């Protein structure tokens, strides 16, 4: 049962344009959402996050939007740059008691930014 879904396995965008990566979730208990970026043969690196009490969070070229009623979030990258080419993972966590707050990941979207 995939609780976090990234339905687009790949996306190609021209340099300078906007990249929009989408993520859907099914667990209404999730209250914190993150995006990670991963290059081949490296571990994922944290990009940006959003709490469920917000609907938007911005950090430079990266903006994450959260639509709780639709259980949908998206990552916008503008302008896209060749160095943004990587696999992007959406992740979510739920409140916890007595144990670690673990992240549930989506399957990833491979972004290719072309010249």
């Amino acid at each position, binding site marked *: 049962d995939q609780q*976090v879904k*990234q339905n687009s*396995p790949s996306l190609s965008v021209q340099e300078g344009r906007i990249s929009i990566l989408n993520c859907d979730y099914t667990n209404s208990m999730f209250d*914190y959402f*993150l995006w*990670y970026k991963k290059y081949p*043969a*490296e*571990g*994922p*690196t*944290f990009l940006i*996050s959003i709490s469920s009490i917000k609907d938007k969070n911005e950090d430079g070229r990266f903006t994450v939007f959260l639509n709780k009623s639709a259980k949908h979030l998206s990552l916008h990258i503008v302008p896209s740059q060749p160095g943004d080419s990587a696999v992007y*993972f959406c*992740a979510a*966590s739920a*409140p*916890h008691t*007595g*144990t*670690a*707050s*673990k*992240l*549930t*990941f*989506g*399957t*990833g979207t491979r972004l290719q930014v072309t010249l």
Partner: protein
Amino acid sequence: DVKVTQSSRYLVKRTGEKVFLECVQDMDHENMFWYRQDPGLGLRLIYFSYDVKMKEKGDIPEGYSVSREKKERFSLILESASTNQTSMYLCASSLGSSGAFFGQGTRLTVV
């Protein structure tokens, strides 16, 4: 900066061998995790630990065990390696409900 270090970048092991993957973090994080990444499946949680000597099963614990004798170190053990355990293994640590910091990954091939 948080540093999570995995002992090997690449490993090749034979079927049936006992395999140890080691992970060390230097930020006194209470939580540590082991994930595996496979094409089309994303990152799947194998085991996690929220304190020394404490461990919990993740989504795919079968064929694996873990050890956390010290706060900074979390080991993943493949008791008898099989070819379907060929994968990229990723260790992570976190503090409370913050996002996780990942190591560089270990690409394990079981032949």
